């Protein structure tokens, strides 16, 4: 194991090219004395589908939550589309971002949660139209039109007037996907979106996501334990361990000939 710890100090930097959409620069996240992310550098190119894998506690979900501004990093900066997410420049100096500024940059990012988090007091339609109307300023008609199209995409048109509690977990998750897409985000974050579902409902949700991955140019960051799904949709797989990217590559490479010992151990445990 000593060989592992020495190699895991080298951070693999996967996609450095002109069209990068997301950049983490020396991001450190701690919970008390526990370091979740340790000076993490990584970037994602626009339009790519990137899957984060690794043992639990390795910091994958933390990355998504930082991007969604559900938590703040202790150190380092995050950029989305060339704009700082956590900071803003004032008089040439980098200062912590105001709520208003953050909200503006955050509009480009959507997220689907493990527990769906639909609004139980709103019907399916209103769950999807609420933010486009309130945040993007769409008219009610435009927003409803968009919602209908998305419900068709996720195959739930007939449930438009139901409350979330009247739907199965899989259906709720598909509504949540539609809700996130209604904001037309550049980036879609998927946080273990099938982990809370009964096994027979997983396929329906993954089919919808495959469809979206193959037919849109939306950038996806995906934390999942569904390795077949990851292989299907990913352009790139990042293997995390102890808050660092220890290996990165195409799904073919990572799943068939991983270089790193930790990756091999992890894959043999989950596959």
């Amino acid at each position, binding site marked *: 194991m000593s060989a592992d710890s020495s190699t895991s100090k080298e951070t693999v930097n996967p996609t450095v090219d002109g069209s990068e959409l997301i950049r983490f620069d020396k991001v450190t996240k701690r919970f008390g004395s526990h370091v979740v992310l340790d000076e993490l550098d990584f970037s994602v190119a626009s339009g790519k589908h990137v899957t984060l894998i690794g043992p639990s506690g390795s910091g994958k979900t933390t990355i998504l939550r930082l991007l969604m501004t*559900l938590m703040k990093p202790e150190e380092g900066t995050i950029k989305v589309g060339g704009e700082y997410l956590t900071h803003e420049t004032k008089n040439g100096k980098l200062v912590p971002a105001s709520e208003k500024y953050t*909200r503006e940059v*955050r509009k480009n990012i959507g997220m689907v949660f493990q527990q769906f*988090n639909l609004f139980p007091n709103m019907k399916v339609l209103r769950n999807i139209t609420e933010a486009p109307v309130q945040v993007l300023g769409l008219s009610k008609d435009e927003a409803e039109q968009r919602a209908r199209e998305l419900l068709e995409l996720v195959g739930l048109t007939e449930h438009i007037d139901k409350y979330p509690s009247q739907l199965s977990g899989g259906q709720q998750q598909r509504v949540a996907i539609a809700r996130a897409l209604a904001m037309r985000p550049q980036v879609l974050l998927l946080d273990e979106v099938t982990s809370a579902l009964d096994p027979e409902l997983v396929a329906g949700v993954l089919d919808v996501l495959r469809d979206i991955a193959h037919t849109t140019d939306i950038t996806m960051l995906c934390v999942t334990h569904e390795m077949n799904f990851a292989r299907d949709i990913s352009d790139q797989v990042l293997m995390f361990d102890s808050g660092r990217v220890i290996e990165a590559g195409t799904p073919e490479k990572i799943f068939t000939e991983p270089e790193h010992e930790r990756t091999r151990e992890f894959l043999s445990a989950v596959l």
Partner: protein
Amino acid sequence: MNWDWSNVEDFMPHFWDGLLVTLQALAWGTLIAFSLGLLWAIAQRSDQVWIRWPVTAITEFIRNTPLLVQLFFLFTVVPEFGPTMSPLTTGIVGLGLHYSTYTAEVYRAGIEGVPVGQWEAATALSLPKRRTWTAIILPQAIRRVIPALGNYVVSMLKDSPQIAAIGALDMLGEAKGFTQATFTYEAISIVGIAFIVIAYPASVLLRVLERRLVR
């Protein structure tokens, strides 16, 4: 002792006066307690210390001192530097203020009962703070605390006779005056029954609401 209907007849005009005072105190008091309590609960979740701290201090203070003391304070001390209010208005303000500190706790529990995922989903959709409160958090929080809020209406009804101490004669205050003047017991009996007649349907209504709203 024999029940004397002529005493009842003599008392009834006073009873109606008292009932009107009781119902006014209850209705306005409830309105104040429900709206002010919500304000306290939201203020206590502010990220500004200078809002959070004073509100917590004031509500703790009011909740932990007797209503009767507060009524006397509002009636005798406040006019020295502030507005002079009629006994009934003072009673309404006193009841409303006192009970708002209890309803604040109820709202607080309701707000904390909304899963953190709801806040996170609102953030993920970039919904503004105010909209998150009004469209997502409060509708869910209030729905589950309506039965608990209702209990305080019944409590307030039972505390309402205290406003007689500052001269707002509610139905019990009227009965007390009548009884002391005539040495009869019919008036006080009628008022006792009146409390049940108001409170019991309210309790039943609350139980129905509880079954319908808390699922």
